[in-house]
């Protein structure tokens, strides 16, 4: 069969790259047995492809139907370079599959001494017992078992047997995604089971529901009158928001175009938006390092968005339009991008927008520079945990930013690095603002 899983197995790097370049492709999708592309390349030992996939945001701890993570497969097949690469990407060395086996079980069983040592050095425990009560040491040949015992003792730890506990019911694992999610773009209204209305905003009604056994959010767009022209524009525009290929972008999965209803469907994010996380009562503490992590996620997502051809639905960067995944990954929500026919002449969150975006037509300004300004306001928000210009109504706030030079103030006590970065990103001259890929290394440095 000619598909991505096949190409991953045979190590066809050209085909895999081509496939990955298509934004509609989700590199975390799984095949019939839940094997993601990363599972396959790890199993087959295609180091280059493992590297590529990891760079493109493949999940290192995704599980297949048997609860194996890619590290299990790499360890079992003796690909030491792959194992090292996965460990470097913080793969869980003590992940347990459905048999209760860790990667170390397999490395020991197949006698890959060097891999066993690598795993051990990365913190793998030799005492984890599987369903049958066997530890990795039990699986190893006597000579290897002896060496591992010595290694553990040398590091000053003792071998403790941890018995198997059934944990799969806790649902802690991140499975590879259901491949069907990105397969259909046209969805029929009848297949959606919408059960809870989440919110009503100027752009439409948001419902929570289920579709093909997935938790989804459906947004019924508010259009005054759904003309055939609008319906046609919708059809042309929504596929551009199906960006599955980047971990920091939350795509629209599909859409129902059944006038008078225009509905976009995306994955349900229980943690809701960044705005909510920062200013709502969610109990999540966003400390300085988490703030930088969010900023990095957002910058990566935006850099990717800017690397694509300009898409027609307009995405305005602000904390309302960034969603937070279970694992606290920030994701640019394409579901919040505005269709060409949506909210014409109305800007509901001008606080994050640059003065030129409030005054000039889209064609007469640099959208990347405008986004960079919004990013500056966003990192200001992450740093201060305050809502920008909360005291003004949108109309007042917009007029003041556009015509009266209203700007965010950096409070005393802000780290000088952060203050400097905010200043650079919101340079009054759009041409002097950096690009997102230039901001990334700065944030990486601040993370350390």
């Amino acid at each position, binding site marked *: 069969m000619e598909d991505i899983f096949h190409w991953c197995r045979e190590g066809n790097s050209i085909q895999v790259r081509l496939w990955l370049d298509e934004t509609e492709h989700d590199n975390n999708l799984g095949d019939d047995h839940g094997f993601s592309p990363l599972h396959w390349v790890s199993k087959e030992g295609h180091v280059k492809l493992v590297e590529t996939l990891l760079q493109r945001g493949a999940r290192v701890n995704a599980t297949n139907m048997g609860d194996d993570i890619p590290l299990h497969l790499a360890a079992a097949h003796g690909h030491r370079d792959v194992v090292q690469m996965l460990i470097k990407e913080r793969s869980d060395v003590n992940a347990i599959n459905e048999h209760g086996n860790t990667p170390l079980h397999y490395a020991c069983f197949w006698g890959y001494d060097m891999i066993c040592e690598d795993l051990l050095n990365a913190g793998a425990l030799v005492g984890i017992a599987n369903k049958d009560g066997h530890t990795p040491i039990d699986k190893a040949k006597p000579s290897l078992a002896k060496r591992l015992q010595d290694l553990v003792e040398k590091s000053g730890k003792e071998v403790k047997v941890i018995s198997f506990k059934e944990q799969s019911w806790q649902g802690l694992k991140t499975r590879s995604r259901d491949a069907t999610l990105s397969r259909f773009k046209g969805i029929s209204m009848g297949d959606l089971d919408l059960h809870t209305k989440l919110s009503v905003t100027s752009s439409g009604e948001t419902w929570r529901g289920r579709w093909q056994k997935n938790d989804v959010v459906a947004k019924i767009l508010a259009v005054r009158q759904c003309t055939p022209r609008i319906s046609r524009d919708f059809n042309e525009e929504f596929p551009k928001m199906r960006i599955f290929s980047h971990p920091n972008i939350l795509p629209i999965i599909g859409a129902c175009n059944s006038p008078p209803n225009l509905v976009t469907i995306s994955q349900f994010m229980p943690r809701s938006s960044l705005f909510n996380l920062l200013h709502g009562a969610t109990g999540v503490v966003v400390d300085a390092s988490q703030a930088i992590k969010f900023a990095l996620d957002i910058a990566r997502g935006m850099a990717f968005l800017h690397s694509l051809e300009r898409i027609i639905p307009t995405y305005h960067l602000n904390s309302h339009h960034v969603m937070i995944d279970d694992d606290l990954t920030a994701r640019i929500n394409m579901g919040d991008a505005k269709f060409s026919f949506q909210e*014409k002449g109305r800007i*509901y969150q001008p606080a994050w927008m640059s003065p030129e975006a409030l*005054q000039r037509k889209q064609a007469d300004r640099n959208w990347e520079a405008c986004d960079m300004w919004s990013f500056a306001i966003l990192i200001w928000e992450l740093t201060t945990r305050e809502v920008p210009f909360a005291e003004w*109504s949108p*109309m007042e706030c917009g007029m003041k930013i556009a015509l009266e030079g209203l700007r965010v103030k950096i409070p005393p006590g802000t780290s000088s690095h952060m203050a400097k970065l905010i200043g650079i990103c919101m340079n009054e001259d759009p041409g002097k603002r950096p690009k997102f890929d230039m901001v990334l290394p700065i944030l990486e440095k601040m993370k350390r």
Partner: protein
Amino acid sequence: MSTLNRPKSPHTPSAIKKGEKEDSFWDKFSTLGRKRGTREVKKVQEEGKYAIDSPGSPNQYDIPPEDYALREHEQRAVIDPQSINDPVVVELQRILVDWINDELAEQRIIVQQLDEDMYDGQVLHKLWEKLTSKKLDVPEVTQSEQGQLEKLNIVLKAVNHTLGFHHKIPKWSVASVHSKNLVAILHLLVALVRHFRAPVRLPENVFVSVVIAEKNAGVLNAQKFQEQITSEYDDVGMRCEKDAFDTLIDIAPDKLAVVKKSLITFVNKHLAKLNFEITDLNTDFHDGVYLCLLMGLLGGFFVPLHEFHLTPQDTEQKVSNVAFAFDLMQDVGLPKPKARPLDIVNMDLKSTLRVLYSLFTMFRDFA
């Protein structure tokens, strides 16, 4: 009556007719007559053109009022030639001509002068059909004066009916229109403009001086007086389905001031946030800028400054501003305003009041 004595085809001095014959005769004989002949040919051409262009033209135009053959106690009103050149009157005529031409552009009808083009009922017929989207069963073209009068009679009846003259007597009649009485034609067109809320703004308080000639005991008396053609805009508004506003304005005009005041207070309460203040409801909203800003303030959004003209230069920009504000109103769930953008630009007070009032009813509790 002078009207009956009028020739049915254009006047052409008989002397020329004679000359024409002579010339053609000379042409045949010698080159001597050639030069003179070409001159005469030109004359004939002009004459022919005149004959074609103005069929059945009643030539009352040139007759000064003193020459009227008036009967005892008969009156005749004629516009004072000086007042026709009054810039306001010229402006009024220009606006009316432009309006008719705009309305009838699809029919390829071009009006140049009101009196010359309106008297035969032809243009009026088309105009009425266009404005009411009805059909009137009259002959398309008539050449004879009798036919013209009959047609004009039918058309004016229909027009008067539309304008609601059932008991009141209009300021125009078949005879006055057909005799190209500019005062009557102006009254008629102004009434049409007002009734159909034509998208034009007429100059207010236009007066023309009219000379009334009356024959008393064989002596011709001429009296001059001022005839009002247009009044102020306040007292006329759009005539659509009657609503609370019509009743208010018709029945309790004294309450109007109160309503205006509370609307100004409401509007200023919000505009003050942007350091704007209005003083006059009639004029301050006509360019649409405040409407756009007000929509943003009330609707809880920012209106990007490139979407409208912050300092509109001409009517077109003002109209697009108002139209944009109307769009925003509908976007936030208000019903489509009855008024048209042009009404607001033309400072139609009732339309402005209506728009503001609908905003007021929706957002009065909005802080």
